[in-house]
């Protein structure tokens, strides 16, 4: 079953073209990594899928409808370091935010909401930290809490913006395990990253981006040296046998 369809998608900021002719599909239970250098348009594509930036050309459909109509089926995980670490909020309260749309504006959270939040926190291995203040956690743990918030929303399409940036090995594994768990439950996942190794580990598919698309398909077939050189501009690429190293400027 197709969860996300990108059909010749183009996005502009004023007169500047940020993305052009992005094409591809993501199926239920499948993960796709958006790979490209900084400024390639990975975050822009995620925002377009969420319906936060307008699509200038082409079409995005989520579960057969427009992103605006499918908003309740999507969840977004931002980079944890963009949030205020001094904010007086507990880990449990952050995760419960994932249930806000279900809870509504006035009524109190039901037992089902609290259970969903606790389970989500368990899935990222932080159940014992529920009462701690969000800002007291390490960067990797905060990223896991934000993933738990998204899990609590029970999404059918999960979008993560650079979730592995500055994350320690323990948190990285916890994030990978939680993403695997979500996929086995039928959730489609889109992850922006420039970590090729993690893209291989977490995702079946990759989309190579640098304003336009340089490849979309199974990781093994798409991550070829030629395509990577084209995506990253060639001069920051070293090849050692069958290994590929991309150096970021």
């Amino acid at each position, binding site marked *: 079953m197709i969860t996300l369809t990108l059909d010749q998608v183009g996005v502009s900021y004023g007169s500047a073209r940020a993305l052009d002719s992005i094409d591809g599909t993501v199926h239920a239970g499948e993960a796709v990594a958006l790979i490209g250098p900084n400024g390639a348009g990975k975050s822009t594509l995620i925002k377009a899928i969420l319906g936060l930036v307008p699509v200038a050309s082409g079409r995005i459909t989520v579960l057969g409808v427009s992103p605006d109509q499918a*908003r309740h089926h999507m969840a977004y995980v931002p980079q944890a370091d963009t949030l205020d670490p001094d904010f*007086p909020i507990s880990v449990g309260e952050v995760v419960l935010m994932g249930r*806000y*749309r279900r809870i509504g*504006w006035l009524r109190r959270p039901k037992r089902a909401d609290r259970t969903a939040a606790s389970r989500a926190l368990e899935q990222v291995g932080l159940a014992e930290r529920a009462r701690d203040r969000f800002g007291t956690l390490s960067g990797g743990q905060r990223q896991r809490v934000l993933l738990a*918030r998204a899990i609590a929303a029970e999404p059918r399409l999960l979008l993560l913006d650079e979730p592995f940036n500055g994350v320690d090995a323990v948190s990285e594994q916890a994030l990978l395990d939680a993403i695997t768990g979500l996929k086995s439950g039928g959730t489609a996942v889109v992850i922006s990253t420039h970590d090729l190794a993690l893209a291989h580990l977490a995702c079946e598919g990759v989309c190579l981006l640098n304003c336009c698309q340089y490849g979309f398909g199974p990781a093994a077939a798409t991550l070829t040296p030629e395509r990577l050189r084209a995506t990253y501009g060639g001069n920051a690429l070293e090849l050692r046998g069958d290994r590929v190293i991309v150096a970021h400027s």
Partner: protein
Amino acid sequence: MLHRLFVEPFTYPFMARALAELLICGTLAGTVGVVILLRRLAFMTDALTHTVFPGVVVGHLLSGDSGIFWGALAAGLLTAILLTTLTRRREVAEDTALAVMLTSFFAVGVVMVSRQTGYTADLTAFLFGRILTVTEAQLLQSAVVAALVVALLAVLRRPLLARTFDPEGARAVGYRIGLLDLAINVVVALVVVASVRAVGTVLVIALLIVPAAAARAVSDRLVVIVPLAALIGALGGWAGLATSYEASINHGLRLASGGTVVLALVAFHLACLAAGTARRHRRCTAMVPVRPAVAP
């Protein structure tokens, strides 16, 4: 002693009305102040307290003291809309837009009030408030504003929390950030308008910022910070008014009530800062690992 200081002065009707006004405004401003603190809107709030000033003057010119509330309300709402629009556009830096609005609106107010014959007295009253002349009708206005603001905050508490903590995440789940920002600017404008009569346009910023900052200094939990800020706002008003009365009547030392209220709030803030520092120190001490005994 405590009874004479904190209860006796308020047996006079004008003092009881002043206390009621300060309790309403202090509680309200303390609560709304938490949102201002978390959204880091202190400068925006300061701008709003100044832009309300020409409204206060026009209201007074048109229908005396009873016009102040409506003039301030009109200017406050206009400012809330302008601020929301300007801060969403990227052509002008946010702080620049605020500074231009703050000074130009305030200058309009000063120019208008300077054409009055009792210029200095009027200016002082607008800037520093006239709490002791609050009427029952004005009290009712403040109570209605307070009820409106509390109801709005209760309804919007979840979207506001989501927007304040993670604006991008809040947009992603479908909250209308522009409308939420407008709502909070209107709420701040309403509190400024309601409090302007009590402490004036210059000192109202203290009522909005200091109680919330004091409460934040002693707690990391919103469920504690919000009621504590409201309590500090109310107690600061009470203590300031009582001190001002005691000094003026029993000791011949004339203290302006608005200024004394602000000083009482600052005293609460200093006490909370000290308590917060002591609490953190105790926590750090408790977390120092015990050095293992060295074998002889």
